[in-house]
């Protein structure tokens, strides 16, 4: 059960950092500021999808039904469930595949933001979800999204968090995947904020597949930690973790990837790769690719390659006439491709690429 307390809305204004995305090209979007829906623009493809503010659904059956999901020892999660002041419930009915992506912009202006978004995909349904996190003022941000994927459903989850240096943030994205269901998380962490971000995928039943790809760029005095946990709780499950990081200036970036295969979860596949570029003399980038395996009959691999920009790649690109600056830019943009190719409008792509360029100058 989660406790929802609505906080007052200061005004209906949107910062230009968000309003610039609202173009004719953008379809199916919701803008939420401080827990209040400012704009909701959905096409008929979302007619049958239940999308509600968390406040309306706090007593609803769905939350009772998944009550055990909200039992946790994690302090940040506990706080989130007790103090929620923003969030959405997105419920895709059985057999219903929505191809057009749903864009949700979460904006903070007044005090702390405690967001809880809950995505439920019924059997054989499909959803493309996109989220954008942004803060206007100094605050703490506690952002949680939980997704439940029932049999044979598919979730494409794309996220950009662009929190400013004024925020201190904890982000938890959790996914619970059942038989034959498939979740793919592509998240770009292009914050200036100090952040602790976690993606947790639990593969609950056979043939469940979970993928998490994280692109993270840190700069200036930023400290950021990204933990990806994929837990295999059934045999014949597949989990993939891919991390791409760039650390600049005096920042510290840590990737903690964990593939966990429990006992008897035979024929499971756990793969993990970390790639990182350290740009500044004082930058730091750590990757700890862990495999915790309690079963013999599995396929597993993990690796990390961290270093400065590859000389051979630079030489190759420059030998075709690209300047050093352009060659570096192209190599970094290559890191961003898992998220970049998921973005639906030119404004979103441009914002993403420019933010990364500024952070990697």
């Amino acid at each position: 059960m989660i406790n929802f307390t609505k906080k007052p809305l200061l005004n209906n204004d949107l910062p230009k950092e968000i309003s610039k995305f609202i173009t004719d090209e953008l379809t199916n979007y919701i803008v939420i500021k401080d827990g209040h829906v400012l704009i909701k623009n959905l096409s008929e493809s979302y007619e049958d999808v239940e999308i509600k503010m968390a406040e309306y659904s706090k007593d609803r059956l769905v939350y009772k039904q998944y009550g055990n999901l909200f039992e946790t020892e994690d302090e940040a999660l506990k706080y989130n469930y007790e103090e929620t002041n923003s969030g959405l419930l997105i419920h895709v009915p059985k057999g219903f595949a929505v191809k057009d992506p749903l864009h949700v912009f979460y904006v903070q202006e007044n005090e702390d933001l405690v967001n809880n978004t809950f995505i439920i995909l019924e059997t054989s349904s499909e959803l493309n979800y996109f989220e954008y996190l942004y803060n206007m003022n100094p605050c703490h941000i506690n952002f949680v999204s939980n997704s439940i994927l029932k049999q044979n459903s598919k979730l494409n989850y794309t996220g950009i968090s662009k929190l400013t240096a004024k925020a201190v943030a904890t982000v938890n994205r959790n996914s619970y995947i059942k038989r034959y269901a498939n979740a793919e998380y592509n998240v770009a962490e292009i914050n200036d904020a100090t952040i602790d971000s976690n993606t947790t995928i639990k593969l609950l039943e056979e043939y469940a597949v979970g993928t998490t790809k994280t692109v993270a760029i840190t700069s200036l005095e930023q400290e950021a930690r990204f933990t990806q946990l994929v837990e295999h709780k059934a045999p014949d499950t597949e989990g993939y973790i891919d991390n791409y990081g760039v650390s600049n200036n005096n920042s510290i970036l840590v990737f903690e990837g964990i593939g966990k295969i429990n006992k008897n979860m035979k024929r499971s596949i756990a793969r993990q790769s970390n790639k990182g570029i350290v740009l500044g003399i004082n930058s730091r980038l750590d990757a700890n690719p862990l495999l915790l395996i309690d079963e013999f009959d599995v396929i597993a691999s993990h690796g990390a390659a961290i270093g400065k920009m590859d000389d051979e790649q630079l030489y190759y690109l420059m030998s075709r006439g690209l300047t050093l600056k352009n060659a570096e830019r192209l190599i970094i943009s290559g890191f961003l491709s898992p998220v970049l190719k998921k973005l639906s409008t030119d404004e979103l792509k441009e914002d993403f690429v420019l933010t990364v360029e500024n952070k990697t100058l």
Partner: protein
Amino acid sequence: MSILTIKNLHAEVEGKEILKGVDLVIKGGETHAIMGPNGTGKSTLASVVMGHPKYTVTKGEVLLDGKNVLEMAVDERARAGLFLGMQHPAEVPGVTNSDFIKTAMNARLEEGKSISLFKFIKEFDDAVDALKMNEDLPHRYLNEGFSGGEKKRNEILQMKMLKPKIAILDEIDSGLDVDALKVVGENVTAMKNDNLGLLLITHYQRLLEYIKADFIHVMMKGKIVKSGNMDLMERIDTEGYDWIKEELGIEDERVIVEEEEERVLLGVCATKEALDL
């Protein structure tokens, strides 16, 4: 018409001299081939002319139309009209072939200008077609997961698109089967014109059946020891290199002696060690 002049070029890697005085002049419209056994410095010459950071030039000069190439950065050399089809091109994940070539073509234009998208796509498609490559090539990541043959063809594709004045093809034939070699050979031959100077580096004669060379050079001990025409190639084809070594009194033609790599010990996983598990 461009002229590439290499004069008494000496270069070293990690303090070891590999090029020991190379002299060569390549004019637009000419095709030169450098042959020779492994480890004689052929590929080093190509890399030094392009400006690979690993090598240091200790003596001599390289001029392109009178301009000092050795003072230019790698990208300036490329924009001046030099091209190197590499033996082992790097893989760049996440960067698509078409993005890369487009960026490279735009780099040759004045600032603020860019090539027309329509013209680019047409040219690219034609080149992919001519080289009998897969249609999905533009969207694939640069060289990532390419077979040896695909990498070589991709180098020729870039050459087609970038239209250099002087092109060096470093062992473009190694790793190619007969059919692929024919395709590559035909495409390179089709590119020949009075404004293109070509330098082929190879140790197989096979390539020269598809790309006719005007001059054949043999490299040993880090310099060109013998030059001639196709007759020289035919003699090498039938007799090998021993007669040249005898003629010149060379015992060991190599400058690069491959050291046997130290065996890697499979031990504890690095992560485990780092975390003290």
